[in-house]
């Protein structure tokens, strides 16, 4: 049997708009993944520690405040430091098109702006994880 994908759904920073995170968490679970939800107001340190403790395959960030660039930069740096940069990172939320290349440069692989159908992001995660496992 295929190993179930473990994904950490995280709300970094101060933004508390968690409708998207909670909806996506339910969709990922219905797609057969094991979902761990961090709750609100998480620091990058807390998120990376949870990722290690929970031994996740994917970290999914939900960011609505517009601060996705500084937050993602901080996260990837911290992941390198903690030597967990093999974990896949995906981001959803209010992400303007012009920031997508910048996020890719930071090393974010999956970018799902608000309104992305669940199926699309789920398929993307499954396809891109497969080669490693």
């Amino acid at each position, binding site marked *: 049997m295929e190993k179930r994908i473990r994904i950490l759904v995280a709300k970094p920073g101060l*933004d*508390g*708009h968690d409708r998207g995170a909670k*909806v996506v968490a339910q969709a990922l679970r219905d797609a057969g993944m094991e979902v761990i939800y961090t709750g*609100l107001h998480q620091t990058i340190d807390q998120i990376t520690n949870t990722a290690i403790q929970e031994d996740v395959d994917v970290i999914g960030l939900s960011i609505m405040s517009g601060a996705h660039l500084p937050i993602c930069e901080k996260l990837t740096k911290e992941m390198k430091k903690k030597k967990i940069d093999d974990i896949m990172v995906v981001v959803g939320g209010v992400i303007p098109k012009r920031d997508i290349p910048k996020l890719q440069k930071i090393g974010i692989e999956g970018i799902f*702006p608000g309104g992305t159908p*669940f199926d699309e992001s789920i398929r993307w995660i499954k396809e891109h994880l497969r080669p490693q496992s």
Partner: protein
Amino acid sequence: MGVAKYIKNEKDEVQEVILQSGIHIKPLYTQKDLEEIGFDPDKDLAPPGEYPFTRGIHPLGYRSREWTTRQYTGFGAPKETNERFKLMISHGQTGLNVAFDLPTQMGLDSDDPLAEGEVGRVGMAVDSLRDFEVAFQGIPLDRIGTGLTINAVASIMLAMFQATAEKYGFKKDRVSTTPQNDILKEMIGRGAWIFPVKPAVRLIGDTIEYSMKELPRTNPVSVCGYHIRESGCSPVQEIAYAFQIANTYIEEVLKRGHQIDDFVRGFTFNLNVFGNLWEQVAKFRAARKLWAINLKERYGAKESRSLLLRGIFGGGGYGMTKAQPENNIIRGAYYALAAALGGAQTTALCSFDEAYTIPTPRAALLSLRTFQILMEEIGLRDTVDPLAGSYFIETLTKQMEQKIIEEMKKIDEMGGMIKAVETGYVQKEVARQAYEFDKGVQKRELIKVGMNKYTEGEEMEVELHEYRQESVEEQIQRLREVKRERDNRKVVQLLKDLEKAARDEKNVMPYLLECCKAYATVGEMTKVFKEVYGEFKEPSIF
């Protein structure tokens, strides 16, 4: 979004219409429907301005007074926000609605490491009184009412507002402000909470008690069904939850020995407008009636003005789409129509570009023009509650009313809203509905034009609001200056006094006012509260 479910047959005829509140709409309504549901024009309606106020809180509606327009505004440093305030006022806006950045909402100063990347981003940064002085410079605070979209630290901002008004020479009984100050809805839907439920509710009690005596024109609480609806609940739950939250705050003040008629007129509501047009209008009419009954029967309010549901009906954020953003201009117009037909006292709209950015001046002005067209061109001021007496609207209003009562009962049976939030019941219910709803949209059972139907066409480029890194540096610079120039010994003493007042469970407002006047920072005052009260822990709902 909030559209109804339409079931069609093979000939494309609509067979069933199911509203989000679960009510099935019939193809035709007649007198018989009113009889069946037990509609009694004397009991259910009465003239506008009379109990139970279904038809409105004023006898003449918008004839006597147009609504107040109050677009949500604030970004970057206070100076930029002040300029935008003045721009909107010069174009005929009649109220202000201040957006604060996330660090301010979370009680952090701009130089706090946790604030990095967020200063001035989604609203104005406020660290000390100096910032309010800049933001409100040249604003006639005795003529323009000011909404403050702040919750966890609303008590601090209310004190800050009073200190600013005083500084600019406005009498405290002449200025009018509406801090949002609804922490329970933050715990359900918007997430800007800091302290645990009970002390957070006590702080709200303090602001109400204080305003009653010191700031008579202030509306100390704006109870928000709005954000709970944005987070996923139905229009029926929006009202039911808002009322049960309001009841929690009422009980907090009653237990201090005050009379209901002495404070409840300071309550206002912030309600949402997106969704099925008829359902929204019926929702507002039913809500007005139930609020009056709630006050009279549950709490024994006697004065007529205690029974009035006054509110800002507007926003509509979740109804707007990222796809084909120009369509949001049209949606906004219909949402504003729903607010007007529902008898809103105040309105505001999410601008068409808000799925992308802080509204540009052009987008904010389009929202303002939408209101002006409704009121000054197409006839929404002509007559009060124009839909009254319609077989359909009156039936639907009664149906909404019954469903709201059922939903309120569930919370009562649970032991009230504090319990329902502490255990995560409401959060879970809201998240479940949000998921069901989004699935419905993705499966195209619920239609959103331009998003899941009629999606072809060119994509519009939206002009983005520029986030200015320089204004962050200016902000931190100003904070340093303030700390250098103020009497630091005095600040330390005042913060100690505040801490003692909080520990002794005294009303903290007079202490906050003194702290603000001495230029203590939002971060410093919040830190005191955190030490005394601790911090909220979210219940796990998954």
